[in-house]
């Protein structure tokens, strides 16, 4: 448990960065609101119609070097850190906010970030050796973006968190249970090609075609502990099943209406049509832990016990079968509708309001939270000051801020945010995001 928490925290906090929607540092600094006024490479994956707006850019190149977001349900980030390091000697108050459904951690990072974090920690790379930062470039009304993204969701039962925080208590031997303790992770590399075109003088439309390369899809699960009452010992087994490859495609459509030169309305449907096929060659890892392992062992040693072997459907354990059942369940991208309005004042100040809603069953996204975000950017000499605020479906509020530096065509963007809230069902929610990116942008004719 401690290992799981530590890994997830490290993934999210060791370096970075952005992305409720896997977007760029500029958007991350505005709580994900950058949509109707996104231009150049930043619009490729969100609304390709913007590639051909009169105010768009002639050439752009950008990279989101590192980025990620972690959202914890059931504990604050500080409490999570205490839980991770408590080694059986923590405060019982750490359990106060954890709901019956357990502690949930959602993390999304750039694939390269996950790779670097895993290397720093000396643990297996969950990204499948993702080694390229997110890149995007556009020329006139077309462009290409390459993104590697690792996403992980971990759930730890309240009872196992209790074990990690307070250590093994023989008086509670009848209470320890793994329940829904599990982890799900995947890394995708996407190649998105987009084009935009004017339909009328004020309306632009665009499309993006996305090729998806699945690098790794992992489903892991902890099984109920077996208890030796005579000796008051506890042991539990865990299994993970993974698919190490896959292919898919997605089609995005977008349209933008330029009401006035300073006011834009945008609508886009991501993954309007999509398919994903994962490799059917599966790998399985299994190991067993006792109460001392769960409470305090070194995570490298624990993770080192998992050695993947090829899944033999005629010679495996029921734990492996049970873990594999959810591996492919909804392992594809959901259809997402984004609508937004953007206003750019003559002073250069930008205000954007963006709503996002996911449809369908797909789960290959950082989270499926429907949200509304409001963002603002204000230019100040060579800097661009940004702030944003978002409401999310589960009652979470995200506050974000960022700064960009522009020297000629060179831009350096930093963005980050803080999430907090208390959902009616899930308990308290806390999150942190950060990202950093570089860009070259050459403006086209008629740019406002």
């Amino acid at each position, binding site marked *: 448990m401690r290992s799981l928490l530590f890994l997830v925290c490290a993934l999210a906090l060791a370096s970075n960065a952005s992305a409720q929607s896997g977007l760029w540092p500029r958007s991350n600094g505005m709580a994900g609101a950058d949509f109707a006024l996104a231009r150049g490479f930043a619009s490729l994956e969100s609304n390709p119609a913007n590639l051909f707006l009169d105010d768009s850019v002639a050439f752009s190149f950008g990279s989101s070097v590192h980025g990620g977001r972690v959202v914890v349900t059931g504990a604050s980030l500080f409490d999570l850190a205490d839980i991770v390091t408590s080694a059986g000697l923590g405060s019982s108050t750490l359990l106060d906010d954890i709901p019956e459904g357990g502690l949930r951690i959602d993390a999304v990072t750039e694939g390269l970030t996950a790779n670097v974090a895993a290397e720093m920690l000396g643990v297996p790379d969950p990204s499948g050796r993702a080694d390229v930062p997110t890149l995007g470039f556009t020329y006139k009304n077309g462009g290409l973006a390459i993104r590697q993204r690792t996403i992980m969701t971990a759930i730890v039962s309240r009872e196992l968190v209790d074990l990690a925080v307070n250590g093994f*208590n*023989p008086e509670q031997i009848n209470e320890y249970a793994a329940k829904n303790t599990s982890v799900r992770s995947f890394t995708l590399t996407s190649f998105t090609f987009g084009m935009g075109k004017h339909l009328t003088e004020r309306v632009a439309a665009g499309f993006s075609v996305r090729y998806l390369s699945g690098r790794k899809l992992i489903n892991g699960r902890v099984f*109920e502990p077996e208890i030796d*009452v005579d000796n008051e010992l506890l042991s539990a087994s865990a299994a993970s099943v993974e698919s190490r490859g896959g292919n898919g495609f997605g089609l995005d459509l977008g349209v933008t209406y330029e009401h006035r030169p300073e006011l834009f309305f945008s609508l886009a449907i991501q993954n309007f049509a999509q398919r994903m*096929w994962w490799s059917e060659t599966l790998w399985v890892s299994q190991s067993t832990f006792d109460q001392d392992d769960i409470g305090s062992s070194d995570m490298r040693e624990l993770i080192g016990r998992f050695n993947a072997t090829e899944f033999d459907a005629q010679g495996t354990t029921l734990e492996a079968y049970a873990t594999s059942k959810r591996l492919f369940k909804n392992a594809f991208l959901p259809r997402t509708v984004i609508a937004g309005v953007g206003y750019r004042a003559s002073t250069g100040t930008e205000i954007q309001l963006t709503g996002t809603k996911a449809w369908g069953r797909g789960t290959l996204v950082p989270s499926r939270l429907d949200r509304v975000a409001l963002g603002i950017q204000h230019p100040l000499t060579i800097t661009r000051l940004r702030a944003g605020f978002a409401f999310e479906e589960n009652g979470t509020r995200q506050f974000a801020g960022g700064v960009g530096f522009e020297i000629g065509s060179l831009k350096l963007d930093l963005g980050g945010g803080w999430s907090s809230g208390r959902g009616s069902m899930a308990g308290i929610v806390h999150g942190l995001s950060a990202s950093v990116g570089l860009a070259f942008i050459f403006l086209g004719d008629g740019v406002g």
Partner: protein
Amino acid sequence: MMRTPPTFAVCMTLVAALSACDQWSQDLPFEPDPLLVTQQSLGPAGGLVSHPLGLSLEFPRGALERATKITIVVPLDRNGFPGSPEGRLLKETYFSVLPVELELLKPISVDVSVSAGDLEAEDQVRLGFATPSSGAAIRTDGVSFDLTSGILRGEVTSLGAMAAVVADNVIAVRPEAPPTLEGGTFADAASGVAPPVGNAARADSIGRAYSADGPFLVRCSHQGFVRRCFDSGTMDMWSSSEIQDRLGAQMVVLNPDVTGDLEFTNFVDGVPTRAYGSLTVTGTLRVQLGQAVTSFSVDDTFVTNGSSGGTDVTADGNSMTLHSTSTGTRTIEFAVRPSGTGEQLVVRGSKTVEFENEDGSTESATLFIDLRLRR
């Protein structure tokens, strides 16, 4: 003259067609198929053989003498389990593992997938494995059940048909302290046939004494044609409040098996001073801990082993101490009652467990077993 469809209409048709393509979850490469026959060649090094429908067998090193092809088949007639297991067969867990005649040198671990949600709570602690080679008996030793995943785990000692069964040969442990036994007077003493001190009514060649009314006997089992323990009133179990607090109130004993005889002699003032005999109680204690059901072996045997194979006895009220037994000195609570034309002796054994507390102190908890012996 043919009209060219408007570009817009073509685009809209294409878009509508594509948008209808909402994806369904990809199938696993081994979707459960009842017609699938799985095979593995395993040798003395052991290994796994499994069926995606929900069976996995783990052969430990040394379980097989030579390389053997192990086959798992889902029987077409899932109501056709051979034999009559004592309990309710969960037919969806019925598999046939071949070769049937294969001799196993060690028990093998078997996991069966059981739909926990389809079982009543009281059935979840009564699961065992049925195999034809063990006759009507159900294997319950060492069985555990993961209520979250539905994995039932145990051991079998032979191949062939195997299935999960909700055992009905079960004694529920009463979640309360037992009533006090009242002691009493033996008929030997009351009838006035008790011999003088140091003598017996009858004696064998090694000097062992016999009582006038013969020994008290007890026998119940889960095997053969012997009467069952659960419906014969032969055995009762109770748990102290400490056990209920620590392990929960729902405890049962599966496959109880009791055998024994006790003969009391050499009465002084109506109280026996010698006893001969033995008592054996076996079974599987089952309890739900958290989200898992766990088994513990019950195996309590004592034999009087003093001079002439007997033991000195001292009795005080409802308490009787047997000074020389295979497990040392044993003090048991007892009651003697008339039973029809005969006599019933109730003896109470107990198993005390020391539970460790969070602060390192210990707490005693006791499980009580009442046995009714008759003569």
